[in-house]
């Protein structure tokens, strides 16, 4: 059963709610980043919500995903809890990674979410690896790797796609073409008209869909998932989309003009889908407002929870390097913590 069934009215409403949750989660994260409460870097998914939600809706709950540096949307689409996510962004112990990962490394392996990723192009080999486990164990599930347009220029991507194709592994490559890799337009990074044209190199299907249309993405991923499950190997899906915010928060965005941003905002995936549901009589103005209020409450709760969460104790920095304790690290830690101690021997 797909995680969210877009064939049903309830499913369609849930998809809209997820998209709106991503939107508000990220807009709120931006505010708290600007306030200095969220350390490090944040890369927002605002504008791209239809891709993550359309894709994850077509997956089943025990399917795997690998994500990117722009991962919050993938997490929420996969069903992760915004409250636990926000705590992670704030660097709190109550977060998904106990504060060790942050925005760029958020993960929930139990939910099949194998991590946001700070390394462009690193997800597809991992997704291919998850598909390898599925294949080895004869499981009935699939893996889906998200990637940006920029990631298709990585050797890691080529190699993973070739391997997955050669072994007919149950993995889907979903490329979010948001028109830029940082400040460089997609046309200056690739020479093909459509990124999906490169699928020919692996002899796998390559299609380009409207990434502002949650249904279009959903249908493409549902079909690719079927192929994967049937042992026919990977599919390359390119979703044409756009990010409304800068590459990261704080980006001056000198590489694009506001007219372009306005054009894409005019094709907003949330507005468009809400309108569609209203036209079909599946959503009322009031119903949408109510949904928005509920989402707002969820996000507010996430912020409150993040504020009341705890900072990890400094000595937790030494945990999780290995399965067990390693004496080398313990010794270094003890020396570091015993300032003025007698490490190095008696004099």
């Amino acid at each position, binding site marked *: 059963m797909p995680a969210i069934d877009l064939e049903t009215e309830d499913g369609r409403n849930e998809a809209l709610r997820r998209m709106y949750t991503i939107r508000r989660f990220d807009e709120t994260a931006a505010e708290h980043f600007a306030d200095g409460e969220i350390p490090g870097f944040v890369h927002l998914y605002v504008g791209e919500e239809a891709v993550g939600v359309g894709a994850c809706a077509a997956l089943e709950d025990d399917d795997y995903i690998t994500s990117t540096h722009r991962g919050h949307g993938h997490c929420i689409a996969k069903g992760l809890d915004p409250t636990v996510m926000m705590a992670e962004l704030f660097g709190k112990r109550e977060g998904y990674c106990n504060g*060790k990962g942050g925005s760029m490394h958020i993960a929930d392996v139990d939910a099949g979410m194998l991590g946001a990723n700070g390394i462009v192009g690193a997800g597809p080999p991992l997704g291919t690896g998850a598909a390898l486990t599925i294949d080895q164990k004869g499981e009935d599930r699939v893996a889906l790797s998200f990637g940006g347009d920029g990631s298709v220029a990585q050797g890691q991507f080529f190699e993973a796609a070739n391997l997955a194709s050669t072994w007919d592994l149950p993995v889907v490559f979903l490329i979010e073409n948001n028109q830029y*890799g*940082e400040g460089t337009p997609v046309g200056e990074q690739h020479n093909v008209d459509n990124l999906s044209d490169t699928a020919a190199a692996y002899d796998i299907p390559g299609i380009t869909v409207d990434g502002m249309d949650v249904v279009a993405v959903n249908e493409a991923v549902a079909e690719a998932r079927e192929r994967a499950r049937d042992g026919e190997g990977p599919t390359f899906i390119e979703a044409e989309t756009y990010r409304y915010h800068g590459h990261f928060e704080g980006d001056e965005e000198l590489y694009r003009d506001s007219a372009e941003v306005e054009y894409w905002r005019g094709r907003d995936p949330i507005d468009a889908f809400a309108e569609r549901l209203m036209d079909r009589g599946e959503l009322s103005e009031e119903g949408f407002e109510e949904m928005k209020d509920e989402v707002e409450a969820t996000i507010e709760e996430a912020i409150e929870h993040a504020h009341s969460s705890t900072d990890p104790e400094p000595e937790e920095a030494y945990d999780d390097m290995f399965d067990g304790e390693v004496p080398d690290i313990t010794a270094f830690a003890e020396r570091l913590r015993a*300032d003025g101690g007698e490490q*190095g021997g008696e*004099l």
Partner: protein
Amino acid sequence: MASAGLEREETQTMTVREAIREALREEMARDEDVFLLGEDIATMGGVLDVTGDLYEEFGRDRVRDTPISEAGFIGAATGAAATGSRPVAELMFSDFMGVAMEQIMNQMAKMRYMFGGKTEMPVTVRTTEGGGMGAASQHSGTVHTWIAHFPGLMAVAPGTPAAAKGLLKSAIRSNDPVFFFENKMIYEQSGEVPTDAEFTIPLGEANVEREGTDVTVVATQRLVGESLSVAEELDGETSVEVIDLRSLYPLDTDTIVESLGKTGRMVVADESPLSYGVHAEVMARAVENAFYSLDAPIQRVGVPDTHMPFSPSLEGEVLPDGEDVRGAIDRIV
């Protein structure tokens, strides 16, 4: 010695970032074979704003934005260097070194040797290192040990604006592959930098930044400034000599040995993970060459073999700073 030159020459106050950009500008103006390539170094001026407006001055053929293909463009820099160009590649974060490692370790480092000396390899790779920004494990690493360890590669890691400028110019002029490691927390640090376009600092020379007689602190990058502050704090109590190691390979054994002859005590401060780090090599050279000068066990300050965690409370724990240098001094003085 460059420090002697410093006194003679005209200087200007500059940040590390400006010093690096100035070195690039001067070398590009001096030699038209020099060009830059890397991700978002033209239109965006580099994510940490180092290349800045250079593309406006030199055009897009000499300041090239690349696709996100580190193996490809660092490999291409290697091939270009072997055929008469003098490329300077920017690797946005040193954590991405692994993506390009094959070209670095098997091609760039080995071609001259394997070909019986029949090729030059005048390539420079600039990259950023270090924690302190909350950038988490994949954007905060200090990996210069890998490069310094690998035969056939040179590695420099400046701690001051003057060192940044002088070393980068020497790196670009060198016919060997030189990795130039920029700690991202010191870009805004300023200091006096010689303005002479012929000012360079030879690869393989450390610099005594402050003289002292009780203990030598051999430091790199951000920890040079931190150690100088500690030396200042301890003034009148403990006389601390601070050396900016500057060159990781070749390594200036003489300056270290000479300093130990005066102080007999040493702390090595570098942001690498402690095990098998730069510290280990400096200590080995000291023990090999100045064993009888040593009055106390050598201490090292670095990252205690963890990755850089995200949360500030955790990052602060494992990131070495002046306090750790101070603690190490206290243990042996």
